[in-house]
């Protein structure tokens, strides 16, 4: 049996369950919409102003996340093969990490991780 068959089954069942829950909300239960009820919640006062633009910080966090995520992937590959690579492999990964740690120190020094 293909090991991905269960993955497909769970995917379908999971999406189905989510869809049923999401659909139940739509079809079961009363529907008496009115203008006030449909107002986006704002602590009981009329909504003021536009949606705020988000801080550039979030964007920076996402970019750094991608880069360090890729690093983690390499580390997983290395951890799997570390026994057979021996000291040479350790040296390899230390070089890799030193370069990236340089980048990390730059990030910290430039204050990119400060949330004010």
């Amino acid at each position, binding site marked *: 049996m293909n090991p991905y068959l269960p993955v497909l089954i769970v995917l379908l069942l999971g999406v189905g369950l989510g869809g049923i829950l999401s659909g139940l909300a739509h079809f079961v239960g009363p529907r008496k919409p009115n203008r006030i009820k449909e107002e986006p919640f704002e602590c009981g006062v009329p909504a003021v102003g536009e*949606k705020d633009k988000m801080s550039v910080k979030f964007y920076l966090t996402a970019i*750094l*996340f991608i880069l360090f995520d890729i690093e983690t992937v390499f580390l997983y*590959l290395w951890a799997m093969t570390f026994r057979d690579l021996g000291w040479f492999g350790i040296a390899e990964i230390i070089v890799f990490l030193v370069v990236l740690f340089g980048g990390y120190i730059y990030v910290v020094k430039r204050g990119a991780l400060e949330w004010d």
Partner: protein
Amino acid sequence: MTQELVFLAFASLIAICSMMVILSRNAVVSAIFLVGDLFCLAGLYASMEAHFVAAIQVLVYAGAIVVLFMFVIMLLNLGPDQRKHLEVSAPEIGVLGLTIVGFLVIGGLLLLGQPTGVTGPLTAEAIDNAGGNTYTVGMVLFTKYLWPFELASMLILLAIIAAIVIAKKEHIKDGDKRRLAHG
């Protein structure tokens, strides 16, 4: 036979999702279809028994890069596309034409030669015997492709620095504006 059916299913899903990425008027909806697209691509890799690449495809592309796209869409606070009709500019037609020509050329080359069906020494069985897909990828990467791997660290480093430089510039500009606004 099954392999071909699976390929066809995923390939058509990918085609549909890709079309939706381009055609939907809302950028966030496009991003959702992009996630579906990349997910199906992972399915394609999985059907070729490239387990590691499939997992990484979901982890890095669907789970990280599209998150960044979504953040950017929200950062710019893009509304839905207001145009009533699809307008296609001259460069876009050019790109479309080039793509079609490219596909035709590839198809012609495939028809002329016999490049398909030739498997290298690393078949699925060979990989299983060598200790699994992830292990084999790791061994190849850390011995044969040692230099590209170390260069990848430099690439990530450059990307980190570039991201900070660009984002920080924006930040300073914002600060200036605020200072100006407050007099």
